[in-house]
């Protein structure tokens, strides 16, 4: 609860700072503030506090994901200064939206009541609609915003329908109560329909096939930082919230659910990877890669009792790698108006460090050891094997192979092609964020026990 207040307060503070003309301190202060929040979460782990009618629950799952989300936001804010250097007047809006968005995310991973979940996801969505469309003179940005909005609102309707049905079946919005009713088997039959509808809504949010169509277009059209945010923060939040709901409510689903989850996972991986192969726009490519990663993460849903830590680990690995990659992309594509592969030509010669960072990030996404992405996949595969989903693992393995194809296309472009772009300036923050994100990723890779430390 305190965390939410702190973050929302920070957002308001940012708006106030703009009013009193302290624009320069907005980003440093909000980063500092978020570090404070991070400290707060860590300090409060294990302590109890007022839950306000069980609206916000404190559990290890929520804390772990909160830490991850706040850290990601810190990194994203670190990129903001450079990214919005031509939009100084709007910086407070951007920063405060991001902070509010973070509060929505935190609400989503720590909710105890569907009202909080619904508001959280709407905050997240609306903030994203705004951010996606935030380059108001850029038609691509507008289009991205519009597409995201239309499909997102549609998905929200379905989600809401699902929540309503659950309410109808159980008479409560409280997750614990609902879980208790579900486990006691007293719920009405609408419950499962509701759960499925929520699942569909969440599948949309994590961009799993066949609800993934928005992702590439939106990722491509949105400003790069927003894309980074969507593919890391938003995706992690959505998958975490989805998992939370799923693990609470999926006791009573028919057996075919497993087939559907497996099918969606396979479809997402395959579509994501195959489509990514032929992309020329890096953001779009990463969007498809994100779709396939969503498919991988869905593997965790087959085994909800034990998969929380794997999911967290996967999400963390994916997000840190994603931020590192996007930091480089933001630098490379700034002021270019597009993110074509050709922009990356010769990066290995002109900016070796950035090229290496991007390479490592892509390695992590491809699941090459010693980066965290490898262990993440390892854990998921391991659980799927234990659960007996061998076909899924095989499809996942085949997909990992395909994914190498497009990741390496980018790597090759960086290291072999001749540079045709002039780039000046080596913005410190971008380097810092990229390096930190990558180091986090590596640390996760070399010390995968981290999930245990967070109590997962």
């Amino acid at each position, binding site marked *: 609860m305190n965390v939410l207040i702190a973050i929302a307060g920070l957002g308001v503070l940012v708006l106030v700072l703009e009013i009193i003309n302290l624009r320069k301190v907005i980003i440093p202060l909000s980063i500092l503030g978020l570090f404070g929040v991070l400290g707060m979460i860590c300090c409060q782990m294990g302590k109890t506090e007022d839950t306000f009618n069980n609206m916000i629950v404190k559990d290890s799952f929520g804390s772990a994901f909160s830490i991850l989300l706040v850290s990601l936001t810190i990194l994203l804010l670190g990129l903001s200064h450079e990214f919005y250097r031509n939009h100084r007047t709007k910086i407070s809006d951007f920063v405060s*939206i991001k902070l509010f968005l973070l509060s929505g995310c935190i609400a989503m991973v720590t909710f105890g009541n569907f009202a*909080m979940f619904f508001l959280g996801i709407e905050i997240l969505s609306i903030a994203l609609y*705004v951010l996606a469309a935030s380059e108001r003179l850029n038609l691509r940005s507008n289009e991205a915003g519009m597409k995201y909005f239309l499909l997102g609102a549609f998905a929200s309707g379905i989600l809401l329908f699902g929540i309503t049905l659950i309410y109808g079946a159980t008479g409560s919005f409280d997750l614990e109560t609902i879980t208790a009713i579900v486990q006691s088997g007293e719920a009405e039959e609408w419950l499962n329909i509701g759960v499925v509808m929520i699942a569909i809504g969440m599948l949309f949010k994590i961009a799993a096939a066949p609800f993934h169509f928005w992702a590439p277009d939106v990722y491509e059209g949105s400003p790069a930082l927003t894309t980074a945010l969507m593919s890391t923060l938003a995706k992690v939040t959505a998958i975490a919230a989805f998992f939370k709901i799923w693990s609470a409510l999926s006791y009573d689903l028919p057996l075919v659910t497993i087939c559907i989850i497996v099918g969606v996972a396979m479809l997402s991986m395959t579509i994501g990877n195959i489509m990514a192969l032929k992309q020329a726009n890096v953001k779009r490519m990463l969007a498809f890669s994100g779709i396939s990663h969503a498919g991988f993460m869905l593997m965790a849903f087959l085994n909800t009792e034990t998969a929380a830590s794997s999911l967290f680990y996967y999400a963390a690995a994916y997000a840190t790698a994603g931020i590192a990659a996007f930091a480089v992309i933001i630098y490379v594509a700034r002021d270019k108006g597009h993110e074509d592969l050709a922009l990356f030509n010769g990066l290995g010669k002109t900016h070796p460090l950035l090229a290496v960072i991007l390479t490592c990030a892509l390695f992590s996404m491809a699941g090459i050891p010693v980066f965290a992405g490898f262990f993440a996949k390892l854990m998921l595969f391991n659980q799927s094997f234990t659960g007996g989903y061998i076909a899924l693992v095989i499809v996942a393995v085949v997909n990992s192979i395909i994914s190498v194809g497009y990741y390496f296309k980018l790597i090759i472009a960086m290291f072999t092609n001749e540079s045709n772009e002039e780039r000046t300036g080596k913005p410190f923050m971008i380097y810092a964020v990229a390096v930190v994100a990558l180091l986090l990723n590596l640390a996760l890779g070399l010390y995968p026990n981290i999930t245990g430390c967070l109590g997962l």
Partner: protein
Amino acid sequence: MSTVMLLFYMLSAVTLGTAFLAIYSKNPIHSAIWLVVSFFSIAGHYLLLNAQFLALVHIIVYSGAIMILFLFTIMLMNLNSDGEKKKPIVPLVLAGVLLVVVAGILVTIFMNAQPESLQYAATGKDFQSIKVLGKVLLDKEGFMVPFEFASILLLIAMIGAVLLSKKENTSK
């Protein structure tokens, strides 16, 4: 058939009919007006269910605020029926088929999912007076946190709307 049922069926017919017309009308302004009618009929449902406060709020928010926003936008853009191109037949057919399919599926699964006992136990408890609603909404043991949280939602919508429409001062 009792009066209530009759009322329910009439209201339902109006709701569905106007909703359909709102979608089907070529002229956006007509659509908006049909939608207003639909909202009013929903408010009628609320009243039928004895949720007076909600009915009122519904009319204020939807018909009063949201629809005005719609109309305002439509007029701002000066859209009329000519604005939309002649619709090709294929999407209509496809959409129609999907309408049937979706409705069919939803109806089927809800028919299948009928609770065994449709016994509705009216306890006579007051659960939807303004007083009770206020308690549930604003009490610390109620929905206070989401209520406050909704303010962030509205704040973000506001900032967003401003951000999207504000002309930028390019000079730093």
